[in-house]
């Protein structure tokens, strides 16, 4: 039995993303951020996007390219502290920002990928972040309902992939990537190295290929990935 080859030209994969789309983007700081896919998204130029990412990167890189291009309507994130430009745009009302506790963000994305509608938890009870959330009684105790976060597209970065789309990540570049890869209607992965089928053993796979729709080869590894040491 053979498997599909999912390698796709970067421009063709990204061209599917329309105005107003909800787009998840992997990465925690630099590691795992799919900078080449983001750069192509800027070139493609859809407007009014809802971006879901742990952080807003730093000024002049990654998420900031989308912000500077005026493509972002809403940002769902755990913090934007390292990007003064994002803070400025948030304070000026140029973008809407929804802050989600980091582990809640991860889990809400995970359950979306697991085909569930949400979960209940006591995280944030008694704080600002609990305000407006639906309360759920379980065995006489009150919890908060945390709805799943799903998306139209997920953009993820892998260290290695086979042509079917089995992915592996490296070190802390894993972070949100495997969760987001499961949570979107269409997942586009960029990979630093693409190997033939069999080049990644079944036990080594971090994200199984059925979660991946398009696999994009990286023609280069630009400096923004941190190849040059700071």
């Amino acid at each position: 039995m053979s498997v599909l080859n999912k390698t796709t030209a970067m421009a063709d994969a990204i061209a599917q993303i329309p105005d107003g789309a909800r787009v998840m983007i992997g990465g925690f700081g630099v590691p795992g951020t799919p900078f080449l896919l983001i750069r192509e998204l800027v070139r493609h130029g859809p407007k009014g996007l809802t971006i879901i990412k742990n952080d807003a990167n730093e000024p002049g890189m990654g998420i900031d390219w989308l912000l500077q291009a005026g493509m972002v309507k809403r940002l769902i994130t755990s913090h934007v502290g390292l990007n003064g430009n994002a803070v400025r745009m948030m304070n000026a009302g140029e973008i809407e920002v929804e802050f989600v506790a980091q582990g809640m963000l991860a889990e809400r994305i995970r359950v979306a990928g697991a085909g569930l509608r949400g979960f209940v938890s006591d995280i944030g009870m008694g704080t600002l972040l609990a305000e407006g959330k639906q309360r759920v009684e379980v065995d006489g105790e009150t919890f908060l309902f945390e709805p799943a976060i799903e998306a139209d597209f997920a953009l993820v970065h892998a260290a290695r992939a086979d042509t079917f789309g089995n992915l592996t990540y490296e070190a802390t570049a894993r972070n949100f990537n495997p969760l987001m890869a499961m949570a979107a209607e269409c997942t586009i992965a960029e990979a630093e190295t693409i190997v033939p089928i069999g080049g990644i053993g079944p036990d080594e796979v971090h994200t199984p290929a059925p979660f991946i729709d398009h696999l994009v080869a990286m023609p280069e590894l630009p400096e923004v990935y941190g190849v040059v040491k700071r």
Partner: protein
Amino acid sequence: MSLSAKDRMLARAARDIEPGMTVNLGIGLPTQVMNFVPSDRPVCLHSENGIAGVGGLAAAGQANRNLIDAGGGYVTCAPGGSFFDSAVSFALVRGGRLDLTLLGAFEVAANGDLANWIIPGKFAAGVGGAIELAQKAKRVGVLTTHTDKHGNPKILERCTLPLTAMGCVHRIYTDMAVCDVMPDGLHLMELAEGVTLAEVRDATGAPLIVADGPVPTF
């Protein structure tokens, strides 16, 4: 705050990191506590971006571009360390596997309330992982200067800023003192060398309970 007062505070907090603990150190001051933990003490350092077993800062020129801690510094992975995704990382936190977390504070209260993520109108960059760390670690220590840069107390009877978590703090380490949050209030446990009880009372915005006899120093 002189460097030596800061180092003494960091070293004092490091003494409470016991062999066998799994520990998360918050961004900033708490991260520096690791410099005072003896390298032969078996401690598993968790970083919420997906490491159990942070080794230490990567030597210049030795950085792995894919290996940072939650504060963004290049680090190494210790022998026995592991990498995982963000959902697993916070399963470890919420599931009660963290023996101790040390966090910074804008304000901390005598009832154990902690405020360390938002100053309305001034600073609101997002909460990161602080809520879950504060709410779910088995033991929460706060590491902070005793007063802010204007000399105002950071330890109060009740927090005025929006909370990170309610009643979560067990122990407070400052450049002047170590205080424990107990059901009957805030107990002064230790004084920094050269600091008097009167000075600490003056710099604290909540009543301090002090046991009879001399207060130990650190």
